[in-house]
């Protein structure tokens, strides 16, 4: 019996085009938009209306745009930290957990130093002196630093287990996300619950002295966005112009060369994880000190996971990451609009995020290799 099938085969291209590797996220975006349009048609909606809800309305006017930038802030901060890990070949997928621990630590600090009227008043009874020492101008920095420390400590567990027990960092960091979620739940349902909160699972509102002030009156966009903007050149410098960043890069790209040069793999592991944990923790702290001003079980809407997509859409480059954070944030807001205005399910955002990543990986594969179709010859025996 003769049976001829057409098989695709991937051959590496000699020299992948540099222009295409920048164009790849844009092509992926275009393909995602086409897929989205097809999906809208299938759901019986006007595709133009659907696309404009996702890609135009989030930028129409200052208010929606400020919301886009507000959500881009934690995405960019988490993703910048993660880019350091991924460049060092350390697969931290637990930014979500580190974000939550940052939020918890910052929230705890805000409640503690934020004055005697808080829920931790009894706990902080003897801390008047500390609150006095930590004068009003110092309170916000303390809250943010607590967040950094919380996130870094959570990432340190992953680093320690990898370092000492050679545990797989992907599994450990991922599972610690669920531990962090349970911990947050325990705190807001239990010891930190607002006694005057009608039994809702939430802490009291923090004292105003610990709030991250808004950037513009009438919007929720806060100074954290400026911090994220400043972090971009800082990370660019660390990645491309610093000796430490070079060591991380080499340990990721060529571990044998790093050993040959004498760059410590352990140091790379700890540096990358502590910095990325700290960045995620900072993002968490700014989320609770900025727009939320209290802890609830829903502090994060998956920022730490979305940030993974942001890193790759942003090509592991700080500037790309900033742009990708804004794009993915638009999709988050667009997803909310799609629910309220088109009556579409909220899961749509996840579908678009996932297909965006898939399209990007597909584009990358085609940039690095070409497809050859050939007839498989039947095995003659």
């Amino acid at each position, binding site marked *: 019996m003769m049976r001829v099938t057409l098989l695709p085969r991937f051959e590496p291209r000699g020299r992948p085009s540099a222009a295409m590797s920048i164009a790849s996220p844009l092509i992926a975006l275009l393909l995602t938009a086409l897929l989205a349009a097809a999906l809208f048609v299938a759901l019986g909606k006007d595709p133009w209306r659907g696309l404009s809800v996702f890609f135009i309305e989030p930028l129409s006017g200052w208010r929606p745009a400020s919301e886009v930038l507000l959500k881009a802030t934690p995405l960019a901060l988490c993703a910048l930290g993660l880019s350091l890990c991924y460049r060092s070949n350390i697969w931290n997928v637990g930014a979500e957990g580190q974000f939550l621990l940052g939020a918890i630590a910052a929230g705890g600090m805000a409640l503690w130093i934020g004055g005697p009227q808080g829920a931790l008043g009894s706990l902080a009874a003897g801390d008047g002196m500390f609150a006095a020492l930590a004068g009003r101008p110092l309170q916000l920095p303390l809250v943010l630093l607590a967040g950094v420390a919380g996130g870094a400590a959570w990432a340190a567990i992953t680093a320690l287990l990898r370092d000492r027990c050679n545990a797989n960092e992907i599994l450990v960091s991922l599972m610690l996300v669920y531990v962090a979620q349970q911990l947050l739940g325990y705190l807001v349902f239990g010891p930190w619950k607002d006694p005057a909160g009608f039994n809702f699972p939430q802490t009291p509102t923090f004292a105003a002295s610990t709030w991250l002030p808004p950037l513009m009156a009438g919007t929720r966009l806060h100074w954290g966005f400026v911090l994220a903007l400043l972090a971009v050149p800082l990370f660019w410098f660390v990645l491309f112009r610093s000796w430490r960043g070079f060591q991380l890069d080499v340990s990721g*790209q*060529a571990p044998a060369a790093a050993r*040959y040069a004498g760059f410590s793999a352990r140091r790379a592991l700890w540096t990358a994880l502590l910095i990325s944990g700290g960045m995620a923790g900072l993002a968490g702290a700014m989320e609770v000190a900025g727009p939320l001003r209290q802890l609830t079980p829903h502090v994060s809407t998956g920022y730490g996971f979305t940030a993974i997509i942001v890193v790759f859409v942003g090509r592991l480059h700080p500037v790309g990451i900033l742009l990708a954070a804004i794009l993915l944030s638009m999709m988050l807001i667009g997803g909310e609009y799609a629910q309220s205005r088109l009556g579409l399910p909220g899961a749509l955002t996840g579908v678009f995020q996932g297909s965006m990543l898939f399209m990007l990986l597909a584009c990358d594969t085609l940039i690095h290799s070409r497809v050859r179709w050939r007839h498989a010859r039947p095995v003659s025996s």
Partner: protein
Amino acid sequence: MSEPTAARPGSPTPRLQLEGITRHYPGVKANDGIDLHVAAGEIHAVLGENGAGKSTLMKIIHGSVRPDAGTVRWDGEPVQLASPAMAQALGISMVYQHFSLFETLSVAENVWLGLPRGETLASVARRIEAMGASYDLAVDPGSPVHALSVGERQRVEIIRALLGAPRLLILDEPTSVLAPQAIDGLFATLRRLAAEGCSILYVSHKLDEIRALCDRCTVLRAGRVTGEVVPARETPASLSQLMIGTEPPPLTRTNVAPGQVALSVHALSMQGETVHGTPLEQVSLQVRTGEILGIAGVSGNGQQALLAALSGERTVDRTGDRAAIRLFDHPVGRLGPRERRRLGLHFVPEERLGRGAVPALGLDRNTLLTRDEGVGRGGCLRPDAMRALAQRLIERFGVRAEGPASAARSLSGGNLQKFIVGREIDAAPRVLVVAQPTWGVDVGAAALIRAELLALRERGAALLVVSEDLDELLTLCDRLQVIARGRLSPSLPIADASPARIGEWMSGLWPQAVMADAAAGAVPAAR
């Protein structure tokens, strides 16, 4: 002997016939109108420097690259070699210079993958052992490839090619990593294969081997054929003339009186690199300033562990003696590569891409692996300084690269080796440890690298060269030690080191009495 243009008696049509083969790459004509005839049962050499177009030509014959112009005839019939599978079906097998083995699979599994279906893994393993025994290519079929040295991997490649019962076998620089007896064994194998009717294309730049083995020889230079000769009738000088146009200047050695002991290892034992790696047992050596000590041996006998222990990539553990390795007066057993480099010990590893250099990074950034010129105050990188250093290395060592920013992987093997060796020599090391300094490097580059190593010795550095190329060790070194099964022989002055004697020692058979003497003599000096 037959006339160069005529086929051998008894086989009127050549088995393989190339006419006017031309292949362009962007910016370079790799092959330019090449004619080549290989008769049945003939051992035919293709001689040329790196970059002369040998590899492209072999890829065309093996079907992985298509020519832009020209015809390929097989047994007189024109054929279109569209893929390696097609070449394989005709009976063309190739042993590449760069191996194509799966690191995580075992030897037998790797070979099994390339065979037609229907054979069990166990029977493949038995055939590998039988093949290894009869052709002097012993390798453990159960060992994973990542645990093998370069030389052992090459044996696997040769065995894999032979198992396909080829009618034309292409070997690309096959002897670079074999011991003298193994080379003789390989030549015996090849002659037997040829006598059985298999044609052999032997790609090499080693003139002596070609003269000893091959019936005819096609010489390439810059993509063109510069001559087709009977190598037995040629002198090395005349072959080299055809290959590079000029004869490389002979190496000059001046006598330098050895000075103080610069690097000493005393009774060092260490686990192998992996479970299958060879451990070191009670290894002792000494290198003085102004001398070159050579470590001869077949690959896989503990060279990897020894080099890692010397470079600091592996350190002596807490239970070991940190003074087992001394650099001048410092016990360095527990110091890492950077600390040892600060004390003056530099190292050139065997693997260029991925270890000696980061493939995707430019030459300028690759200077940072072992050099501090590009690191400024506060850990800021200084791009200008890196670029200047890379440019200096490019000029001083004749590295052919587009510029300091060229990615390491864009350089040919010889040029990258010149860059890496140059980077370490330029650092003016007090002790330089070099593994396989000229493996797979063309004649011109090899001559330059060897001359630079000798010049460094004359400037008073201590050098330790680990190589599987005995000729190289005999031209470079003052003394030799042989490594076999993780043990190190006593030291032998180069005047007493005949290939026969070294070959015997490579199988671990050195006189124990001498060893005891050497150990007794070495201990007080090492302390």
